[in-house]
């Protein structure tokens, strides 16, 4: 008994000694609990029929009703799932490698001034919003005043209504993402590249390796850790498409290919006050995302002995 009180006294002393550290921690903890963990608790409304009048706790439980509705009756849902997954798979195939290739190329530039200038230019689009960038993309693609259609017409073609035809939408999303984000995406790879021992390159050159061989056998393995980590994160995002890009680019006329889970939750959930059903959609999205990233992490741990956490 006395041993126990002694131990708890020692524990309290340790807490007291660090009281200022807890004080520093406190505001962040409150913000985290209120704005990250409280909403997780709010997910219970996915299993209830939420009514504003009754509040979150007063609303009646309905079990899996909303999930049954989503998977069997909601005619929008298969479409949302297809669009979300298609856009993400296309981004994984075409957007994900872009910063890697770009970083490897920038790494080859020997003039420091040229390198800096290129970096400055390619980082720039990251610093403007999707509203700004998406508006510019739409103006470039405009059939009447756009630059792209001016070029098409100069070569004798007829103007294309890019933003109003479903077949172009996914391509526009992926290309505009590369255009806006590939440059900034190089920053992690470039910092990993600077950590590579330069003597490796010297030795390889003496052995007669050419530029491509150096890239494939020194640079690429040198950034493989970074690639794995970013790949895991990208896979974890498989169920999420950035709301703002789609919100700006997707017009009602191309909803069949452009409506994704986040834009749907916003429009139907908040717009039509269908809170419970769309919270269920959101919960499904978050849980699948969590499973995906945990699986990817496990696989990477097993195969490459590299992991995120």
């Amino acid at each position, binding site marked *: 008994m006395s041993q126990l009180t002694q131990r708890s006294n020692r524990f309290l002393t340790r807490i007291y000694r660090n009281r200022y550290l807890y004080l520093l921690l406190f505001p962040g903890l409150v913000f985290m609990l209120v704005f990250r963990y409280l909403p997780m608790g709010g997910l219970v409304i996915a299993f209830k029929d939420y009514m504003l009048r009754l509040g979150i706790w007063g609303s009646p439980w309905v079990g899996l009703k909303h999930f049954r509705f989503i998977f069997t009756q909601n005619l929008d849902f298969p479409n949302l799932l297809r669009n979300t997954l298609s856009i993400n798979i296309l981004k994984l195939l075409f957007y994900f490698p872009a910063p890697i290739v770009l970083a490897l190329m920038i790494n080859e530039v020997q003039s420091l001034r040229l390198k800096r200038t290129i970096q400055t230019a390619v980082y720039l689009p990251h610093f403007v919003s999707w509203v700004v960038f998406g508006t510019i993309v739409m103006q470039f693609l405009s059939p009447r005043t756009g630059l792209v259609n*001016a070029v098409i017409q100069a070569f004798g073609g007829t103007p294309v209504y890019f933003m109003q035809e479903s077949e172009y939408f996914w391509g526009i999303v992926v290309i505009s993402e590369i255009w806006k984000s590939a440059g900034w995406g190089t920053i992690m790879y470039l910092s990993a590249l600077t950590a590579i021992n330069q003597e490796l390159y010297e030795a390889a050159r003496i052995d007669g390796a050419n530029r491509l061989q150096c890239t494939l056998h020194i640079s690429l393995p040198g950034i493989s850790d970074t690639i794995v980590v970013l790949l895991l994160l990208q896979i974890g995002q498989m169920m999420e498409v950035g709301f703002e890009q789609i919100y700006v680019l997707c017009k009602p006329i191309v909803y069949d290919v452009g409506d994704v889970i*986040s834009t749907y939750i916003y429009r139907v959930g908040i717009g039509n006050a269908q809170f419970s059903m769309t919270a269920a959609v959101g919960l499904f999205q978050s849980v699948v995302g969590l499973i995906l990233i945990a699986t990817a992490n496990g696989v990477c741990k097993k195969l490459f002995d590299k992991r995120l956490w």
Partner: protein
Amino acid sequence: MMKKRSRSRNSFSYRLIIAALVFFAVLCVIPFWYVMVTSFSDPQLVKEGQFRILPTGYSLQAYEMLFRDQRFFSGLGITVFRTVVGTSLSVLVQTAMAYALAKRFLPGQALLTRLVVFTLLFNGGIIPNYLVIQKLHLLDTVWALILPMGFNPWNVMLLISFFAALPASLEESAKIDGANDLLIYSRIAIPLSLPAVATILLFIAVRHWNELMDGIIYIHASNLKPMQVYLVELVMRTQMSSMIEPTEQNITSVSMQTAVIFASCLPIIILYPFLQKYFVTGIMVGAVKG
């Protein structure tokens, strides 16, 4: 050595790489040049749809239209307010939290760090966030744009890795001199990690300046809408009206859109060269390995 180097500089593959990089770099700058040129051109000529390298028929008409719009100024005011107040708050909260979590000896540190990491992997989503904002009576207040960004797990993890790398000896000697943790945090840790803090500050400020989604979801009063919402509504109004009747007046709004874009990007373009030195390579390594 020199010989080898100059040979590789002139090789075909090297020139190809440089050409491709310069092409992409130009592609990244074109939108900004286009916006500037278009916004200062005569709206009547812009609607004819010719992209020129220099303004065609220099005109301030688009800006005159814009500056007559009261909503633009209220949007700008809200955005400036949320950026200044929100960034200060977030930087204070996140650096303090990260400083404490970087102390491995602190009882509860491991558990709390796990709680931070979990928010990276799982979130409540749009609807529960909305309900929390509603329950806190923050809907239609500027605080709905500021408070939820107070905590950010990415930034906290990045800062933890920075504070953990600080030499412990400095803090220990300060402690022997009788300084408490608050003093060490504000007088030693923050000044020593200024590059990291500046980077985080920059990220948060850009995020506040550019954020659209929270303004759309949480703000309905037109005098509280931030600038990005003003811009997106302007664009959508144009598209609606041009579908109904493609009149001249709404074609000139291409000019007005570019004027808003240029005005909203101006602070970023002006500050960009000064801030650039903070994206020092290596700053992100800690975040990845976190």
